[in-house]
C-alpha cells in the first residue's frame, strides 16, 4: 500500500491527487449516501419495467403499467368536453342576446369566444379585433353590416359576399370601379374626393368640393346615403361605410380615396357555418359584440 499522505495544516489524509501544488483532501462521503445512489439505480430499473422508457425505432418499451401520457390527455380532454357540454347545449339553445343576459353563459362564451377568435378570426381582424387595412376593426363603433348581436351572428354564419346561399351582400358585388370602368372622369373623381374630404372638414379645394357634391349625389348617394351616412344608417344592407367619420377602413387621405373611387372596393368574408358549429359561432358573436363596439 502506498504511503499515507496527510495535509500538514488540517491533518486530513489526502487522496494523492495534486494540481499545481494543491492537494485534494480526502473528506470521505458517508457510506449511506453511496447506498442512496444504488437505491436510485434500482429505482430506475424498476421504472424501466413499469413505465414507458426506451425508444425502439418507431415504437418504445411500453412498461407493465401501460401508462401513456397521450391517453391521459385524451381522457382529460374528454372530461373537459363533458364539463363543457351543459354550457354548450344552453348556448346552442339560446339566442345570442339571451346568452349575454346569463352571467355564467356570458363568462363561458367570452372565454371560448376568445380562443375561437384567435384561432379563426385574428388572422385577418387582428388580436382583440384591432383590424387592419381592408379588414374592419371589430372593437370600434363603425359597422358595415350592423353591430347588434343578431347582425354579428348572421355575418359570421353566412359571411360577406361569400358562396353561402344566405350571404350578406351579393357575391361579386361591391363598390363600382368608377374610374376604371369609365363612369367618372379623373376630374370628377378629384371633385368627389374633395367633396368627401370637405364633409370631414379636410378639403383643401373648396371649388372642387362644391362641384363634387353633384357627382356624389348622382353616383354615390345610392349606397352611401344622401348625407354620406353609410348604407346602414340609410337603411340599406349593402355594406357601404359612412363617409363622415374618423375611422377609415382603407385610409382617410385623398390619394386613397381617389384610388378607392377609381378602382372600387369589395371586402369579402367566408361563411363560417360550414366550418364551425352553432355554439362556437354564438360564442364568437358574444365575444365580438363585447370587444367594445357592440350596438
Amino acid at each position, binding site marked *: *500500500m502506498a*504511503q*499515507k*499522505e*496527510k*495535509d*500538514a*495544516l*488540517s*491533518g*486530513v*489524509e*489526502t*487522496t494523492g491527487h*495534486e494540481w499545481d*501544488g*494543491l*492537494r485534494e*483532501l*480526502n*473528506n*470521505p*462521503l*458517508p*457510506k*449511506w*449516501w*453511496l447506498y442512496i445512489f444504488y437505491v436510485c439505480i434500482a429505482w430506475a430499473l424498476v421504472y424501466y419495467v413499469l413505465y414507458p422508457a426506451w425508444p425502439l425505432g418507431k415504437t418504445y418499451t411500453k412498461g407493465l403499467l401501460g401508462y401513456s401520457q397521450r391517453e391521459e390527455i385524451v381522457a382529460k380532454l374528454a372530461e373537459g368536453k363533458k364539463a363543457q357540454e351543459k354550457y354548450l347545449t344552453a348556448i346552442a339553445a339560446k339566442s345570442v342576446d339571451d346568452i349575454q343576459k346569463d352571467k355564467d353563459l*356570458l363568462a363561458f362564451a367570452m372565454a371560448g369566444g376568445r380562443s375561437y377568435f384567435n384561432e379563426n378570426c385574428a388572422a385577418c381582424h*387582428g*388580436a*382583440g*379585433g*384591432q*383590424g387592419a387595412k381592408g379588414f374592419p*376593426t371589430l*372593437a*370600434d*363603433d*363603425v359597422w358595415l353590416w350592423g353591430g347588434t348581436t343578431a347582425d354579428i351572428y348572421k355575418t359570421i354564419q353566412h359571411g360577406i359576399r361569400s358562396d353561402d346561399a344566405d350571404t350578406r351582400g351579393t357575391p361579386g358585388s361591391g363598390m363600382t370601379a368608377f374610374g376604371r370602368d369609365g363612369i367618372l372622369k379623373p376630374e370628377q373623381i378629384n371633385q368627389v374626393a374633395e367633396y368627401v374630404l370637405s364633409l370631414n372638414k379636410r378639403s383643401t379645394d373648396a371649388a372642387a368640393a362644391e362641384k363634387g357634391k353633384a357627382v356624389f349625389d348622382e353616383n354615390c348617394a345610392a349606397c352611401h346615403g344622401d348625407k354620406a351616412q353609410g348604407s346602414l344608417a340609410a337603411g340599406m344592407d349593402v355594406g357601404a361605410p*359612412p363617409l363622415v*367619420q*374618423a*375611422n377609415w377602413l382603407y385610409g382617410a387621405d385623398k390619394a386613397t380615396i381617389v384610388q378607392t373611387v377609381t378602382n372600387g372596393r369589395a371586402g369579402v368574408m367566408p361563411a363560417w357555418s360550414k366550418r364551425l358549429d352553432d355554439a362556437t359561432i354564438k360564442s364568437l358573436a358574444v365575444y365580438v359584440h*363585447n370587444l*367594445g*363596439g357592440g350596438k
Partner: protein
Amino acid sequence: MSTSTDIKPSKGQAPTAQSPADTTPGAEALTAAPPKAQRRASRSMYQKHSKVYPKAVSGTFRRLKWTALAVLLAIYYVLPWIRWDRGPNAPDQAVLLDLANRRFYLFVVELWPQQIYYLTGALILAALGLFLATSLAGRVWCGYACPQTVWTDLYVWVERLVEGDRGERIRLDQGPWTARKLGRKALKNLIWLLIAAATGGAWIFYFTDAPTLLGELARFEASSTAVGFIALFTGTTYLLAGFAREQVCTYMCPWPRFQSAMIDEDSLIVTYQDWRGEGRSLMRKSQSWEERKAEGLGDCIDCFNCVQVCPAGIDIRDGLQMQCIGCGLCVDACDEIMTKVGRPTGLIKFDTQTNQVALATTGQPAPTHLIRPRTILYSMMMLVIAGAIAIGLVLKPGLDISVLRDRAPLFVTLADGTVRNAYTFKISNMTRDPRDYTLAVAGLTGARIAVAGEEQEDQETQQRLTAAPDMVATYRIFVTAPRSSLQGASQPLTFRLTSANGETATYESVFMGPAN
C-alpha cells in the same frame, strides 16, 4: 474545519508534518484539530456510519434543552387548534395557510397572495435572527431550536425509555436477536412512528381547518392529498429523527458549512479549556491534585463523559468542529465530573476565543464583547425589517386595485374621432363587507369612462362599481378621450377608486393614441 489546503509547492514530496507542540497552546485552540475519526489507517473514499449512543446527562443546559423542546413542540402541536373569531364567512382558525382559497391567516393578520412580500420580510428577519444568535452564542439554533435537534432529542428520549441508557443500548445492539431485543426494538419503532404520524398530522392542520380534518381522518374520509402529506411527513420524521440524526447536520444541512463566517473570536461557543485540561490523564486515587499538577497533568481526567453525551458523537476536546451543534450537553457532563472530583466547573464552557487566548497566555480573563459592530448591525437590520413589516401590517389597506391595459388593440379610433383605450380593472376588496366604489380618472382632459357589459354603457366622468366581501371583482373599463387632449402617442392616466367609507386606491397607467 478540514478544508484548508496544503500550499507547499513541492511535488510528490510528503509534507513535513507540523507537530502540534510547535504552536502555542492558545493558537492551537483557534486552529481546530481534526476529528480523530479521520485519522485512520487505510484510505477510503466512503465513511462508515458509526451509530451515536448519547448518554443521559443532567444539568443547566440539559434543562434548557428540555424546556426549549417542550415549548417548541407545544407550539407546533397546539397552534392549529387555537380559534380566532373573524366574524361570519371567515375561518376561525388562528393560524391557517389556506392555499386552496389563497389566503394566509395569522391571528389578526390576513394576507392575500399579492402580499407575499411579507413572507420575504419574515424570511429575512429569520435569517438575520439566526446570524445574530450565532454571532452571540454560536450555533444555539442548531443545539436548541432546529426541528432536527428537537425531534432527534425526543426520539433519543423514547429510545432511552425503551432500551435503557447508552451502555444498555450498545449491549442490546451488539447482542443476538432475542425475543426481548425484538420486543424492545418493535416498541421503540412503534412509538417513533406514532410520534412521526402526529407530527405529519399536525403539519397539515396548518393548511386546512383542523377540527374538520381531524373528523375526516377519524372517519377515514380525508382526501388523498391530506393522507399523502401525512405519510410524507411521517416518513421523513421517522427517518430523519430516528436514523439520520446527526448525519443530517453533518452532511445535509448547509448551515454548518458557513457557520464559521457567522462566529468570530467574541462569540460564546462551546469550548474545552485545553490550557487547563491538558495533559489529560486518568485520575489515580493515590494522587492529589497538587501532585498531578507537579507532574504536568491537567484537570481533564479523560473520563470521556463529554464524548458519550454528545448527540453529534464528537470529542469537544478536539476544538471547534463543523459537527458541533453547540448544545452544551458536554458542559453539563464535564461540570458533573469536575464537581465529583472536587475541581472547579467550567473545564468545558460557553466562552469566547478571545478569552481563551487571554487565559492561556496571560492567565487574565479578557472582557466579553457581546455588543460589537456585528451584533449591533444585525440588531439594527432586524429592527428596520421588523419595523417595516409592522408598519406595513398596521397600514395594510382593505382595498387594492390593479389595472391592465389592453395591448391588442392598443387603442381604438371611434367614428366621431375620439380615442378609446380598454383596461382590465380588478378591485381586491379585502374587507368582510360588500363595498361600493366610485371610479374616476385623472390626467386626461375630457376623459370619459364606460363599463363594459353594464346595461347602460354610458360614458361618464365617474362610474360606480361594487365588489363582494373578500373577493376580487373584475371589470372591463373603456376610457374615451377627444383626440385634442392627447399630447402624443402615450400619456399617463391615473385611476382613482374611492369607497363609500373613504378608502382610496390609485393606479398609474397610460393612455395611448395615434402618434401625431
